[in-house]
């Protein structure tokens, strides 16, 4: 039974990594590629680590597997965010099927200022301050 679970975990983990590789080749632009590589690969590593922890079942190996899972979960999203953000602002083009882009109109490429689009509502609202003259 446990052999069966271990095998299933290893195979699905490897399959997700293969999917990440296929996605990297097939997907049309940088941002969609980031979706495939970071997350599918992270899930693949997590499944394989779970399988190895189950196989060895020793304190040292289990602790190290869990440490690897925690570090992957901590670093993968940060790397994906930084690469995606840098690519977007440097001007890598989006796929032709992209349906909307709410960031572009709020970004000023000269000053690198990124507005939230909520400024007008926010400015209209004004709360009384202590320094206001009576």
């Amino acid at each position: 039974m446990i052999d069966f679970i271990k095998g299933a975990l290893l195979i699905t983990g490897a399959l997700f990594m293969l999917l990440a590789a296929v996605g990297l080749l097939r997907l049309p632009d940088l941002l969609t590629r980031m979706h495939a590589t970071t997350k599918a690969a992270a899930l693949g590593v997590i499944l394989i680590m779970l399988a190895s922890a189950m196989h060895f079942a020793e304190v040292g190996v289990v602790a190290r597997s869990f440490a690897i899972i925690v570090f992957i979960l901590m670093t993968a999203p940060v790397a994906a965010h930084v690469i995606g953000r840098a690519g977007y602002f440097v001007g890598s083009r989006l796929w032709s099927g992209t349906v909307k882009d709410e960031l572009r109109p709020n970004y000023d490429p000269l000053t690198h200022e990124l507005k939230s689009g909520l400024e007008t509502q926010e400015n209209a609202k004004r709360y009384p301050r202590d320094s206001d003259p009576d």
Partner: protein
Amino acid sequence: MTGAIWNLLLGLAWVLLSGDFTGLNLLVGMIFGYLALVLLEPQVDALKGYPARIPRFISFVGFFIKELVQANLRVAFDIVTPPWHMKPGVIALPLSARTEMEITMVANLISLTPGTLSLDVSDDRKVLYIHAMFLDNEDELRRNLKDMEHRALELFR
């Protein structure tokens, strides 16, 4: 935080006293330590709110794993079938998270679930720009993201 440290100390004490140095026994000790802290909570101010946090944390982890697997399968399906079903786009999500720490955690969680990638935060820290892969139903996506943000914030506050 004090609660977590006390829980760990009680678990270690259990391991030392029972003399069985395995991970499983540490887990048993942590569970007994947690039960002891639940009983102590009304009398010790430093432990306020700690017992309620653990079930919330476990349910959050379960919810997150479910989202992770579901979204991964969806992306995987789109990669292996020849026509593109995806409708990618960049959306602006208003944030309820206020401090830098909260925004970092929420943005990381959103990046971790496949199909959404946080791109940038606006300069006034009010809006998170997200690249989403499936915008077929934008309202539902926004509701899901807000739900996740809400659960995560409940955990940290």
